[in-house]
């Protein structure tokens, strides 16, 4: 019991640390790919210290509440995700709960940004929600394939089965679903070529346009949690999870580095191009995967 309470307190903090480390690493890797020296690895922490010490402008009750709402949603999702052996809330809930609560984060950002009453925010939020509409279809199909194949909705069970039977992405029935999830992962994390929701050059960083000071710092924390959740879910479902935390971290690191390399070289899609792409190839692959799982895999 005591161990569980300590885990519930410390695990989101660790997730936050990993997310912030990823933010710093992303900037460093991008810099090295572009033949620059790049900022120090702790630059996001320096930015956050600065932002918490800067004045900020609030735009009303919903503006404050939306950020807290999305942060709480992210922390709850983190508690349901197994990280190696650590999973404080493993006995209650499963993939379905994660799917429901994962919607909190974008909804909170939308609520909060809507109060900002800046046209750039409205454009950014509409792009973000349209993008969510695009990737939710292949995402749900891929997760449905996993649940059908392993005949469980518990994510801990999925990890346990994969420990014995091998990684899902290399097993025959789930191969296509894994590829589909990998193709939509940049859209879930908001990395290029799917960063049209927060495009600084077109719409002044979209939903973030009115955030200043501590609000912006909370948004970066939320972004760090988002990175952690997206990658940890992929590692748990398709890369076999891990028996200890260190191996799990290195798997996440490998996935994230690959995604950042894609992020560094590709330009941005327009929103209708992104929707066309997301509803064509990943959906097709995920649907074929689901058919294979439900017809041949039995």
């Amino acid at each position, binding site marked *: 019991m005591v161990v569980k309470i300590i885990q519930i307190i410390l695990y989101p903090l660790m997730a936050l640390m990993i997310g912030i480390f990823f933010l710093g690493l992303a*900037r460093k890797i991008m*810099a090295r790919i*572009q*033949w*620059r*020296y*790049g*900022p*120090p690895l702790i*630059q996001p922490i*320096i*930015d956050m*210290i*600065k*932002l918490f*010490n*800067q*004045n*900020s*402008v609030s735009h009303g009750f919903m503006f404050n509440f939306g950020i807290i709402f999305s942060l709480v949603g992210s922390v709850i999702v983190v508690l349901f995700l197994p990280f190696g052996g650590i999973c404080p809330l493993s006995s209650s809930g499963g993939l379905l709960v994660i799917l429901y609560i994962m919607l909190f984060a974008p909804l909170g950002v939308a609520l909060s940004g809507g109060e900002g009453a800046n046209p*750039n925010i409205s454009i950014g939020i509409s792009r973000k929600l349209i993008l969510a509409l695009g990737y939710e279809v292949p995402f749900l199909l891929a997760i449905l394939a996993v649940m059908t194949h392993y005949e469980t909705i518990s994510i801990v069970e999925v990890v346990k089965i994969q420990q014995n039977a091998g990684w899902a992405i290399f097993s025959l029935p789930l191969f296509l679903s894994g590829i589909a999830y990998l193709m939509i992962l940049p859209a879930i994390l908001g990395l290029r070529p799917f960063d049209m929701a927060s495009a*600084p*050059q077109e719409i*002044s*960083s979209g939903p*973030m*346009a*009115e*955030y*200043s*000071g501590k609000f*912006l710092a909370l948004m970066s924390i939320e972004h760090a949690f988002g990175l952690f959740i997206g990658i940890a879910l992929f590692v748990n479902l398709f890369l076999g999870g891990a028996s200890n935390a260190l191996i799990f971290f290195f798997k996440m690191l490998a996935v994230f580095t690959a995604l950042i390399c894609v992020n560094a070289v590709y330009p941005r899609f327009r929103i209708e191009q992104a929707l066309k792409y997301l509803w064509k190839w990943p959906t097709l692959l995920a649907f074929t995967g689901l058919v294979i799982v439900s017809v041949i895999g039995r």
Partner: protein
Amino acid sequence: MDRNQLVKWLKAPAKMGHKYSLHVVYFCTGCGIIEIPPTITSRWDAERFGVIPVATPRQANIFLITGYVSVKTLKAVIKTYEQIPEPKFAVGFGSCPINGGMYWDSYNTIKHLDKYIPIDGWIAGCMPRPEAIFIAVTHLWTLIDKDMAEGYKKYRRNYKDYRANQEKALGKLEWPPLFSINKDKDD
């Protein structure tokens, strides 16, 4: 570079944060903006000093005015400066904001920008090289260390005079005063 000195961080985290995380909003008023792309990309890489461009004044804490300021642009410059959350630093880039530069006898440009908003530092030259921006950044670090980069406090203190100057150049301003004007001289 003392970014890695732990003692300084523990003593004054806010000051160190403001030093090493300068988020810049570049105001592209004139030809000076052509020096910015090489500064922030691979050739000179400003990001290693923690200097990155941001898209909106709300997220920024340093305001770089690159080039001459016409009367019409001055309105946007003042609005942008007032939107940046404190503490904020303003830097004039090139000789035009300093004293008009080659537009010294133009009827339509502002000659001395620091009459209208407080400027913490100048980068002289026409054009200054990108290296000059880095020298300016290190000078700004020194100023922040010695608590001398306090233009925003000056603006708050002397807002009445700044507002009067702004109204002299632009006529009646359509936005309300940022601070109350009647309050005199006290912070």
